[in-house]
């Protein structure tokens, strides 16, 4: 099985590259007959591309969902912030240690209404990825989140978070500064809020790193996002002492959006443009925006304490067991 989205999508990416070349050639072609011939060829390859994509997408299993959730061209938090909100003003720093670039946040307007927005931020090339620490937050990231959550509470702003992280940063520095406490405290503060909180899982919902900013009243999840207690490779390493068995672990963990919806652990699964959010980021953002507005509208009908209670009750129900 393919190890990356690029590897999996290779046949499609090759076709698209070819189509681009043909299109460029057709545009430059002055001879009308030859131009016609190239145009026809473009159409032919486009049909082939659609057929290939159709097969790939309809046959997606849990592992392909993992690859899609990690896909490089997938829209990231700041892409959704740009598309859904206006007047986003980024705030930085935890006022203790530094500013964690793996998480971005600040006030913005959602159709005129002031909200606090926050999310994990991935990078698109090696330089950006290093700058963003692969969207793996250190303690200061969660403490920046806490700062923003508390500010939202003071100024009565609903909170919208975007979840997209492989995991929290597991390094020595993070341990020294209390990464576990930072994650737990961020969740705890979220449970103390009396303003509505909506979280959207847009890519990788990676264990503690994800839930640290997802203790929300409503949790939405995009069709091709994943949400898991452990990365499939890590699970495979523990279960079968073989990280290469990630695909089997992905199936066992039920980490797809559909499974999370079936288990009642996310409130809504949001459809993506066919082939993934990156194939039409505008449409993807539009769907997310409409869903967030609907969630907020429902939560607006509740009083402050009711909102807090609603969040408690939402998580209180979670767990499957028998009573004998």
């Amino acid at each position, binding site marked *: 099985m393919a190890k990356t989205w690029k590897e999996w999508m290779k046949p499609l990416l090759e076709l698209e590259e070819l189509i681009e070349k043909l299109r460029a050639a057709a545009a430059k072609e002055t001879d009308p007959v030859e131009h016609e011939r190239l145009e026809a060829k473009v159409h032919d390859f486009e049909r082939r591309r659609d057929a290939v994509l159709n097969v790939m997408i309809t046959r997606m299993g849990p592992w392909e969902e993992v690859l899609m959730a990690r896909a490089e061209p997938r829209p990231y938090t700041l892409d959704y912030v740009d598309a859904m909100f206006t007047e986003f003003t980024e705030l930085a720093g935890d006022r203790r240690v530094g500013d964690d670039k793996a998480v971005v946040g600040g006030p913005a307007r959602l159709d005129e209404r002031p909200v606090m927005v926050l999310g994990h931020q991935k990078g698109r090339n090696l330089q950006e990825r290093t700058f963003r620490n692969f969207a793996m937050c250190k303690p200061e990231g969660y403490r920046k989140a806490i700062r923003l959550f508390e500010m939202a509470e003071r100024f009565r702003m609903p909170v919208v978070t975007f979840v997209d992280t492989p995991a929290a940063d597991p390094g020595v*520095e993070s*341990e020294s500064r209390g990464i576990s406490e930072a994650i737990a405290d961020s969740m705890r503060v979220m*449970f103390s809020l009396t303003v509505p909180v909506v979280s959207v899982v847009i890519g990788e919902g990676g264990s*503690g790193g994800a839930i640290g900013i997802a203790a929300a009243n409503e949790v939405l999840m995009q069709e091709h996002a994943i949400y898991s207690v452990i990365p499939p490779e890590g699970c495979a390493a523990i*279960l079968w002492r073989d990280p290469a068995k990630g695909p089997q672990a992905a199936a*066992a963990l*039920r980490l797809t959006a559909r499974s999370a919806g079936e*288990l009642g652990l996310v409130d809504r699964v949001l459809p993506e443009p066919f082939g993934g959010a990156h194939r039409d980021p505008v449409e993807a953002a539009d769907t997310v925006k409409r869903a967030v507005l609907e969630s907020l509208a429902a939560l607006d009908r509740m009083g402050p304490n009711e909102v807090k209670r609603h969040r408690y009750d939402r998580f209180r129900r979670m*767990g499957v*067991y028998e009573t004998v």
Partner: protein
Amino acid sequence: MSMGQSPTPGRFVQCANCRKTLFLAEFLRDLKVCGHCGHHHRLTWQERVEATFDPGTFEETDTGLRSVDPLEFPEYREKHVAAMAKTGMADSVVGGRARIEGRRVSVAVADFHFMGGSMGSVAGEKVTRALERGCDELMPVVAFCASGGARMQEGLLSLMQMAKTTAAVERCRSEGVPFIAVFTDPTMAGVLASYASVADVILAEPRALVGFAGARVSKQAQVVKAPDDFQTAEFCLRAGMVDAIVHRRELRDHLGRLVGALGAHLAPKEALVG
């Protein structure tokens, strides 16, 4: 006894740390702390209850909760059945009420011997109920942690237990109910990154393994060199993440004082019973 290899079964045990031979009777009297090197061996939940709470006061609650296999995860049922047979427990956490130095407490005790103390739906539910019981019955909550983290075999449901238990801690905070966590060997990952770390007071046993990621992952992930005592209770104390490292022998007294001071406002007349 499960700790170490005993040359004469039943009479002697070997310390898992210094490998010295110990008289079993002495070892047990010392609460499984090595008389030579001070190594704190892991306890079963019963041993923990006996070592900590006033004799005969522990009353188990929520005994009817049973794990199911909601994901039909490979080998989960088999592993769970084997853990039940090995430990006699229904799952990795036991909840209840007890008294410590005469004071009522709500308790949750994890046992590492049951599937590595991992937290799935049942463990999460028992911890949550222990915290809520503290709120409902106005008594401090004491949790003994011993866990490798969230239970992989229940997938996302286990991750949600982190949020559920943390929500209950926040409820305790808002209602003025003290929550004391004791990190015993090991307290890791999903348990450390949820209810355990947001306790009002955190005590740890000497040299307990305490960390977010597996030590191997952490050390690989960073250019920064890990100190020799990385991910131990001592490391956490230096980092300001725990309040004190307490010898097992002194834990009852230490907890008693904390429960007394922090919980005095809850039920002044009920706090001490002769």
